[in-house]
């Protein structure tokens, strides 16, 4: 079992309670159908354990098999510059089959980003570095495909695309933490 390298840090996008006893990290690819399946499962989890989980998303785009994964990751990062990372993140996963440059730009308009700034950030070195940094951290952490999950820094091996396979390890961690 591999561990998360580096650990969760301020560069990460975090959702939920930053002080929660459970931190769930996903290495994901916006165009990967399996990540699309995982997306609503995570939303359900965060709702059910409101305040008890901190969720972190790191980019792991497989660019050669998913031609729109990288530009989508950059678009989410660019939205993040205007405080709307998670909004963009959700919309991208909800529209996985429509991803392309024009559509991503439309999403930016829909969530009322400053589109001029968005367009600039979308192509910025900064964004590219963040996505590549995320990817490399995934490789170093032993991610071998997407989605790759880590609970409190330890790789989750039993995930099988069911809600239960995410729920069970989290419940047992919560029990141990006495929450």
């Amino acid at each position: 079992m591999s561990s998360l390298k580096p650990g969760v840090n301020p560069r990460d996008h975090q959702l939920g309670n930053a002080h929660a006893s459970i931190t769930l990290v996903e290495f994901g690819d916006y165009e990967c159908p399996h990540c699309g399946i995982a997306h609503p499962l995570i939303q359900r989890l965060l709702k059910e354990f409101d305040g008890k989980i901190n969720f972190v998303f790191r980019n792991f785009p497989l660019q050669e098999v998913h031609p729109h994964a990288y530009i989508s990751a950059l678009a989410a990062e660019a939205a993040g510059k205007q405080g709307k990372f998670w909004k963009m993140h959700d919309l991208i996963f909800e529209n996985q089959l429509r991803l392309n440059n024009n559509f991503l730009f439309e999403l930016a308009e829909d969530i009322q980003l400053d589109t001029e700034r968005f367009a600039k950030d979308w192509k910025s070195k900064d964004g590219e570095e963040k996505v590549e940094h995320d990817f490399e951290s995934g490789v170093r952490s032993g991610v071998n495909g997407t989605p790759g999950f880590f609970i409190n820094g330890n790789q989750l091996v039993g995930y099988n695309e069911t809600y239960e396979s995410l729920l069970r390890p989290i419940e047992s961690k919560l029990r141990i933490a006495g929450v």
Partner: protein
Amino acid sequence: MILSKGNLAPDFSLYATPDQKLKLSELRGKRVILAFYPADWSPVCSDQMALYNETLKIFHKHNAEVLGISVDSKWCHMAFAQSRNLHFPLLADFEPKGEVSRLYGAYHEEEGESRRALFVIDEEGIIQWSYLSPDGINPGADGILDALEELSNVKQ
């Protein structure tokens, strides 16, 4: 048992394209990652070869080339590589079947396929790290990167 650290990597010459063979010893002066794997067309969305394809840039930083090896034929490899946009060679350990896999101790006799075994070979052709992954488990690239980094540290 797969070959372990300290052994000279057995030389071989296998088809990398339908009309071109690649000889391991031609790559002296570079580090080589040999990735034996059971079969092309793995059902998993982001399988082992797709992952190495994405990590090529990191491997190259360490002066390392990756070679995939399975018992699939050169034509099968060509179609597989095209469909996944692979940018590194897949070698056909096809005739005599599994001969090179056997040399490295990485042949699964009952299945008639290569095992999922990894080797990191240094610039002089010596195996510096090897790993046999359990059947059906994609070993990722973290072990390879650790081995490459250790080599770089020793050199400095």
